Structure formats: structure tokens, C-alpha cells
């Protein structure tokens, strides 16, 4: 079964400091990994994704994520946090296991979300 874990419900960081939002995953085959951000009363916005290739993926708003296959992790990072980065962040994994084709193929499995607060 596919699953995503975000071990921290909340992350607090001072503006200007680096931030990390953690994500670990479990998949049967090769993972397709995504990060989304949700601002209050808004929909989810796509930040970045890992499909294949370079383990360091760069995305929107200065965010990047590092894919680590041995640790089954896909942590979201930013070198210098902004107050405007405060939001709810979701990690997701796509079910691409070729042995599980059919009704679940292509589904995104989401973590429970991590609330990031950046204080001035």
C-alpha cells in the first residue's frame, strides 16, 4: 500500500532562517513525489515534484526538495524563510506500481499536512 507520513504537525522558524518540512513515503514501485502548499481558505497549489533524475528538485517560491531513496524521504527545504511562507504544506505520492494497475493507478496519496509558521 502507498502512504505518506509528515511527522511534524507544526514547524516554527524565524524569518531568514532555513526551513525543513519532513516527508517520508512508502510505495511498492518507483515513487512520484509532490509537494503542495495551501494558504488559508484557498486550494492547494503545486510547488514541485520528483519523477526521476537529479535528487534535488527546485520548485516555486525558492523551495526545493531532496529525494533520498535509501531513507524513503522527500523533505521540503528553503534556505531563507519568509513570513509569507506561512501556510499548510502537503506531501503526496503517486501510485505508479505497475502491479497495481487499474482503479488506483495515478491516485495521489497525501500526508496529513504540516503547518509552517514563520515569525518576523
Amino acid at each position, binding site marked *: 500500500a502507498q502512504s505518506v507520513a509528515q511527522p511534524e*504537525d507544526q514547524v516554527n522558524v524565524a524569518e531568514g532562517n532555513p526551513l525543513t518540512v519532513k516527508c517520508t513515503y512508502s510505495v511498492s514501485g518507483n515513487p*512520484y513525489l*509532490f509537494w*503542495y502548499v495551501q494558504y488559508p*481558505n*484557498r*486550494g*492547494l*497549489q*503545486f510547488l514541485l*515534484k520528483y*519523477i526521476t533524475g537529479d535528487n534535488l528538485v527546485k520548485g516555486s517560491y525558492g523551495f526545493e526538495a531532496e529525494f533520498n531513496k535509501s531513507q524513503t524521504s522527500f523533505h521540503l527545504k528553503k534556505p531563507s524563510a519568509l513570513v509569507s511562507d506561512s501556510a499548510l504544506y*502537503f506531501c503526496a505520492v*503517486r501510485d*505508479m506500481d505497475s502491479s497495481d494497475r487499474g*482503479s488506483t*493507478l*495515478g*491516485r*495521489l496519496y*497525501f*500526508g*496529513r*499536512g504540516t503547518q509552517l509558521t514563520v515569525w518576523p
Partner: protein
Amino acid sequence: NAGVTQTPKFRILKIGQSMTLQCTQDMNHNYMYWYRQDPGMGLKLIYYSVGAGITDKGEVPNGYNVSRSTTEDFPLRLELAAPSQTSVYFCASSYSTGEGTIYFGEGSWLTVV
């Protein structure tokens, strides 16, 4: 740049009432999804569709129905609303199931009282 459009944004229903959440996308995506979001629970898939005329259940389909008569539209029907259906509902779409990114609408806040 409309993307995925959902209506209504907010709605209050009484127990036992029915309603339809509308969703339309203008990106010619084959795949469409309905998720619900509950606090601290992430997103749960209700129903999805891989193309016009084809729908399938997700993780939490009970109490809901969908249809997909066109590529653009994917309405979600709530029959006999219950307090447990109080949630935020998101419609989403994607071009493919592989590398394709899933794009979300702005959400519909539903309260059942």
C-alpha cells in the same frame, strides 16, 4: 487562466437535504478527482474519473455520487446530507496519471447542521 473552477464557495445544508457541488476545468484534462479535507486528516479521495463516462470510487465514497458526461465537468452530488459530511471539498484535474501534476480548485466549504 481559469483552471479548475468550483461552485459554490460556501454552503450551509440542513440534515437530509441534497445538493450538487459543481466542478469544471478548461485544461482538457482527462482525469478529474474529488477530495475532502478534514482538519489534521489531509485529503481523502471521494471519487475520480479517468474520462467522460467513466467514474470510480475512492477512499470515502459513501454518501456521494458523481457523473462525468463531458470532459470538462465533474459534479459531486451529496444525497441526504449528514453532519459527518461537513468538510472542505476540492475538485482537481490532471492530464495524465504519470508525471502529470494534479491541479486543484479553490475549494467548497460545506457545513451540515
